[in-house]
């Protein structure tokens, strides 16, 4: 769906999306890295379980919530990737106590 303007060799970082090693660029947001690698839906909603993906990309809509390194309900569009970061799509409500 989305195609990167950068070449493969300009993606030196490796992040893990639902366990799959995925290349990313310095400065990518988690949302950009997910969209750039074909992960359009990053979560399902807390009430009806509908798939959702990054929408506003500026921290307002809270539709891009994901689990990052174990922390649930993080905004993918407001978080910059780090080498080795573990990202999980979030299914429904976050768990209490995690």
């Amino acid at each position, binding site marked *: 769906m989305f195609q990167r303007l950068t070449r493969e060799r300009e993606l030196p970082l490796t992040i893990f999306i639902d366990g799959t090693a995925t290349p990313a660029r310095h400065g990518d947001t988690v949302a950009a890295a997910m969209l750039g690698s074909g992960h359009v839906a990053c979560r399902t909603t*807390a*009430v009806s379980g509908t798939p959702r993906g990054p929408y506003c990309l500026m921290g307002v809509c809270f539709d891009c919530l994901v689990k990052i390194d174990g922390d649930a*309900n993080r905004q993918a569009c407001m978080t910059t990737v780090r080498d080795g970061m573990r990202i999980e799509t979030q299914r*429904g*409500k*976050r*768990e*209490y*106590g*995690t």
Partner: protein
Amino acid sequence: MASAPHTEFDFAVIGGGLVGAAIAWGLARRGRSVAMLDEGDIAFRASRGNFALIWVQSKGGGMSRYALWTRESSDAWPQLAAALRIETGLDVCLQQPGGFHLLLSQSELENRANALKRLHNQPGMVPFEYHMLDHAQTEKMLPEIGPDVVGASFCPLDGHVNALCLLRALHLGFQRNGGRYFPDCGVERIEPRSGEFGLHGGVDISAHKIVLAAGLGNAPLAPMVGLNAPVRPQRGQIIVTEKVAPFMNYVVHTIRQTDEGSVMISDSVEEAGFDVSVGSGVLAVMAERAVRMFPHLAKLNVVRCWAALRVMPQDGYPIYDQSKVWPGAFIATCHSGVTLAAAHALLLPPCIDSGDLPNESLAAFSARRFDVPATH
């Protein structure tokens, strides 16, 4: 001004919050033609800011009739929820699993035990089941409590509801029963005439009988028809967290998890006049106490805070009355619009409809209790 050519409605209910909507719904279901006059979106509206508990365990200290009335409403709640579901298709998410009042120190525990003992020792009290629990007993039912919780009082009658769905369902049910809703029509003046009342403000209508259910607005309206409504605003603040998987199988008096998973925290009472601003000082104390009760709450993101104004009668108890000077003018005003919604929707309308108020059963709620006793 030309007077209206005919009396348009059997009843006009002033106020479209939970109290007004419940009574208006109840009257419309009895086949009366009813107008409900409401203010606009910027009205002080406890019905949109409340904490949505159906709370029995501590109500009625100092007036056993109020404890019983609360109990009657709590018992009637399943009937109200079922009727609204049938009429509107809306689920108000009623749950009555029982509620805890969590206590964070030995002195809180002792005070609580004494207050509930006093409540149950009152003359005229019909006792209900409640238990004082220690930490271990509380933890068995609420496994997520923190070590600071010394104990709790638990009452199996307590519950909660989705109060926004309730308000919507009452409005929809009212209109499905033929009621007419007038939004943005605050009432500024009531003109009592023989056999009817003229209401003037956002709209001019007339009705044979009127019910003042305007919350804080009742204070200025009541004297226009010979009634008395000593009510004042009492501010409460609320914190709401992001949605989280269900972890509470019960309600706590200051913390509840909504049907959709948000956690609401409400633990403040302030005399602040008509001021609905939130303050970080109060919110911080509320959050700190909540985290001591449920330590993992500290990890949740807060998504919203607000303040709302309780409608607090002078002595804290509801006021239901009919004007002596202008019979047919009724008043209903109270703090607990959610808990008492079933009483207001199912038990009160027959009394209002037949003019049987204040009657023997509800005499204790007449505003005549505020008068200095007259010599006979």
